[in-house]
């Protein structure tokens, strides 16, 4: 399912990610998934949290620059070839994946893969057509 992700700009300095997670923790915001992309100078911390609006507000108050955008969460069986099956569908439809990261759900037989597409809706229809479980927001407790 289409879900909102927040991306935070961070310089490569000691303790910056800790500060962000601390701010979210202090405000009782739970991080559901997280990935960090970095260069030698800066990084982008991307997160799926349980309260987007509040997370954006508290981070902005602390002068962080935050961007919200849609990603697609896809449920994949936690077994060899699980992700490959999804990527195959996308490849066939010529849909480019900008980036991708994963996290695991309880019970531990499913992995949840977060995909960033240029056009999330197009990707969702492609995935659903192939009978893949495009994870819903409510189910994930993302609201």
């Amino acid at each position, binding site marked *: 399912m289409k879900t909102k992700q927040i991306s935070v700009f*961070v310089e490569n300095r000691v303790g910056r990610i800790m500060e962000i997670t601390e701010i979210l923790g202090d405000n009782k915001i739970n991080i559901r998934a997280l990935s960090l*992309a970095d*260069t030698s*100078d800066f990084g*982008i911390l991307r997160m799926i949290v349980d309260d987007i609006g509040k997370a954006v507000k508290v981070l902005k108050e602390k*002068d*962080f620059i935050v*961007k919200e955008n849609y990603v697609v969460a896809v449920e994949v069986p936690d077994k060899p070839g699980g992700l490959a099956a999804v990527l195959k569908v996308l490849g066939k439809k010529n849909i480019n994946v900008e980036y991708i990261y994963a996290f695991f759900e309880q019970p531990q037989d499913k992995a949840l893969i977060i995909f960033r597409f240029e056009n999330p809706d197009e990707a969702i229809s492609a995935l659903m057509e192939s009978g893949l479980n495009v994870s819903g927001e409510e189910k994930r407790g993302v609201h």
Partner: protein
Amino acid sequence: MIWNRERETLTDRKKKIIHGELLKNLVKRVYDSIPFYKEKIDAARINLDGITSITDIAKLPFTTKENLIDNYPFGMFAVPMSTIVEIHTSSGTTGKPVIGGYTSGDIDMWGEVMARCLTASGTAENDIIQNAYGYGLFTGGLGVHYGARRIGANVIPISGGNTKRQIMIMQDFKSTIITCTPSYSLYLAEVGGELGVDFKKVSLKAGNFGAEPWSDNMRKEIETRLNLMALDIYGLTEIIGPGVANECRYKNGVHICDDHFYPEIINPETGEVLPPGEVGELVITTLTREATPLLRYRTRDITALIPGECKCGRTSVRMKRIMGRTDDMLIIRGVNVFPSQIEEILFHIEGLEPHYQIIVDRVGNLDELSIQVEMNERLISDSIKGLEATENKIVAEIESVLGIKVGVKLVEPKTIVRSEGKAKRVIDKRQI
């Protein structure tokens, strides 16, 4: 060696007569042919018949860089376009560049003053000048070229850059004189060293180095590493380009070609003329320039005139090294850079007031300019590709406007220290 013994060793009395005549003629010329000066002189109710000697110059109005930009492109031309034979512009000015027009008489004069400058560093007919100043709109390349031609020396118009080729040519052609920015000369020394060149075996004997500020410490380093005599040359596009002044072998200030360019030092706050020896803003009147003559042009360079005679025999007035600027202009690898230009580019890209800081440093003898830009809502992307594209765009825009490559680093908001709400725009770490 003195190129023009008659004009470079004028007695005070003779100089005064010449200055008076030239000034009288100049004010009439600018009044009759440049509406800007007519208005200015009329508004100040200056009686031109009262301008008879050089001491009357203090009655005349100043000209500023803003005046030149307001009259862009050709509003300050004193002659019809048909008599202009060449145009040059300043390297990097805010928005529109400053224009210098040249009649064939001006080109002649330029060759004359540059011949004096090159001769002061020992250049003669049998010398081979490797001219590593840029050829083009920049005055450096062609200015030196005309001087070399006037002397009858052999000029190699290699222009700037391509360092390995510079080193090959100087060895193969046996160049005896090098002309470039002082920082580039040290870069040549460095690259030459890496290539295993022994500069004691290279034919270079002297260099005219200018277009950026430097120091006696740098001179010592250049002289030791390149095994030559390093002399300072001064000039600016508005006045002529290089050729306004050059050091002689006694290295005690640059001799101004003062029969063409009349210097004054003023208090930049009040405009009051300061006595010789005092530090202030250099103001130059182009006594003989035909196409774009200027009355009391405020150079914004801070220096002092040096009273007294020079051991070399020239009586032309000397000036100390440039000590600073009255504005925030930076000179990076010979290119004039104003922080406002960078601000304008960032504003254009971001569409909002940018928070940035310019850091100037000298890395391996070359000036490096890097810009830190604070991240904001408009620039942020959730992909590295997106952020790198922003950085590259800033680098490319700046390169296309200023002609120099800069480093750009995106930083977190509020990381640039602000004092009284305003960020310090420039941090100059260079130890010149």
